[in-house]
């Protein structure tokens, strides 16, 4: 793919640039795709309403945050983590177990003489969950950074985390009572009628994008992903990079787990599996978003902005199909088709110009 970032300053119009950079086949395919989408949007009742737009973004938020975390891993050239939903499962169990624990048995706390406040319990549970997610991410990152294949490592780690989560919770639902400290994150809203989780999604998307564009770390991610040999020659080993990126992905997954747990006031290891959700396996959904957003799966090309847009795109397609009365089978099929379609389009784009590794 010709690097569009370098060509933004020449005096070609947008259409000319697109015609130069992409083959006609790709333009036609993407065009048909967008046309179908726009037609669907116009002809579906209640699709283009403020309420529905809010719903779409809220639906996109949970998977979207996870996908933003995973984008760092993908951009740094480490493919993807097959253990996203298992990290989330372990985190949600950890969070809910600590939320449901009876903290008062340890005696009164300093400054709060009568009882543990809700916020305090939430903070302890939240921090502990993040610590566990960081450890989980660092473990995988270290193995990947040492040269282990990301897919196989995270496949094994997925089994490990899922097993630990099931063992910890005894494969039961862990629930805790309302009111609790996570409600404001799961279901609350402090800006008008926009849910807090949507706000969190937007903030995380902006922060991630700024990190990638304007910090040294962000540039290092692109460097290591685009050209590992050049990265090594300039002192940017993949070892540290893999650990950092995996930690970011894991922490994002843990955050989603906390928010989801706050919504339902409970936890179970299967909450993120396809047996529970209607729209398929969480890990695959997250990978789908990263791919459909148009990030190069080989690393070095893409952005978290693309990922966020991908999340909203998939969510709106899903929403459109629900409004038109499609079952979950058709929706999973549609997402699958979108992934395969985007893989083929990007492979065709890449085939023409970039050297094949």
């Amino acid at each position, binding site marked *: 793919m010709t690097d569009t970032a370098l060509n933004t300053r020449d005096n070609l119009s947008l259409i000319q640039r697109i015609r130069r950079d992409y083959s006609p086949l790709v333009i036609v395919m993407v065009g048909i795709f967008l046309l179908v989408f726009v037609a669907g949007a116009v002809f579906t009742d209640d699709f283009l309403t403020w309420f529905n737009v809010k719903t779409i973004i809220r639906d996109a938020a949970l998977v979207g945050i996870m996908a933003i975390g995973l984008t760092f891993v993908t951009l740094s050239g480490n493919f993807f983590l097959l253990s996203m939903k298992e990290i989330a499962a372990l985190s949600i169990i950890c969070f809910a177990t600590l939320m449901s624990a009876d903290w008062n048995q340890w005696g009164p706390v300093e400054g709060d003489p009568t009882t543990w406040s809700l916020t305090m319990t939430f903070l302890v549970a939240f921090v502990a969950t993040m610590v566990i997610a960081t450890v989980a991410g660092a473990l995988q990152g270290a193995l990947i950074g040492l040269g282990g294949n990301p897919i196989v490592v995270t496949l*094994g780690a997925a*089994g490990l985390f*899922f*097993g630990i989560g*099931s063992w910890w919770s005894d494969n039961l639902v862990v629930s805790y009572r309302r009111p609790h400290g996570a409600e404001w994150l799961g279901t609350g809203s402090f800006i008008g009628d926009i849910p807090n989780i949507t706000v969190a999604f937007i903030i995380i998307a902006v922060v991630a994008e700024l990190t990638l564009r304007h910090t040294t770390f962000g540039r290092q991610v692109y460097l290591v992903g685009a050209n590992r040999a050049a990265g090594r020659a300039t002192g940017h080993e993949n070892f540290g990079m893999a650990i950092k990126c995996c930690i970011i992905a894991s922490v994002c997954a843990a955050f989603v787990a906390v928010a989801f747990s706050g919504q339902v006031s409970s936890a179970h290891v299967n909450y993120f599996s396809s047996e529970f959700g209607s729209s398929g396996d969480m890990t695959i959904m997250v990978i789908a978003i990263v*791919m459909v957003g148009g990030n190069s799966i080989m690393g070095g090309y893409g952005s978290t902005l693309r990922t966020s847009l991908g999340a909203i795109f998939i969510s709106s397609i899903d929403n459109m199909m629900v409004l038109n009365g499609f079952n*979950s089978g058709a929706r*999973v099929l549609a997402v*699958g088709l979108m*992934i395969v379609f985007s893989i083929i389009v990007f492979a065709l784009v890449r085939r023409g110009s970039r050297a094949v590794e």
Partner: protein
Amino acid sequence: MERIKNWVTENPDLSFAILLAITVYTFFAITEPLFFTHRTGYAIMERFAVLGLVGLALTLCIIAGEIDLSIGSNAALAAVITVRFTDDWGAINALLVAVAISTSIGAIQGYFIAYLRIRAIVLTVGTLMLLRGVALFAAEEKTVMLTDFRIPDFISTKMLGYFSPASLLVIGMFIVVGLFMTFTRYGREIYAIGGARKEALASGISLQRPMIIVFAISGLCAGLGGAIIGLRSGTAQALGLQYLLLAGTVAAFIGGVSILGGKGGVIGAAIGTLTVNFLNTGLVFNVTPAFMVQLYLGILLLVVIMFQTGSRVFEERQRRSQLLDDVDRRRSILSDKIAALRRPSG
């Protein structure tokens, strides 16, 4: 004795796999009184029928330097098709149709991977979701069931002590694929594109043929495995069989494949699968819940990967230090010579 020693030094991975298999078996045979019986042997072979196929498929993929993530979805699709259409078309026809569909899905995947020159994981993670959707569609989002239970009975009939029609079929499959990989040109091409892809392509091997063959076999194994599971249990779920990928990968890695490709073989796949089956069956005797089995498998895979990666890093470091030593030695020889040349004149 000498011969065994030679064989072990020539096949370190395979001998490690055999040692591990024997260790696991002996451990459970000692701790569980019922483990060392004919019935358990039959149960292990029954598990082998399915897991062996997946282990074989993943072994071939990893030999070719790729990995097929869609194997669970492909198996689930085949299971749904077989179970759903057995009543209408008869078991044999439904099975053949399902396996044909799975095989052609595999072949198409292989073709696209070679044509687009992408890594298989990229495409197969997409088809993983796509095939789940197709399977949901085929099952109409319900759990499909058999009505005639003579078929499950036939598939599990005990033959020759330890075997059933299903496991005999799978053993036959292993033998055929093993002969194919060892004695035909196509088999050697698969090893070539896995171990040294650039060199293989430069020497005129097309990427397309071996890729299509590998993924077609992978699809065939997945389809056959799914169909056997479906017919044996009498039910099939579109979202089931996800555990196959982890178990199959563990089996392949115990069997001695390397993630870099080009290494391993069918015998290794068989031994790796048997080890996983011993572990599985032994843990069932211990009344271990299913999720704990997953935990152990995960740890096992991580340990194997750690060993492989560690030994690779170690070798690389050793080679580098050897290289540096070599340079140092030459430099010192050179400086000695220069000194010797200078001395008389100075």
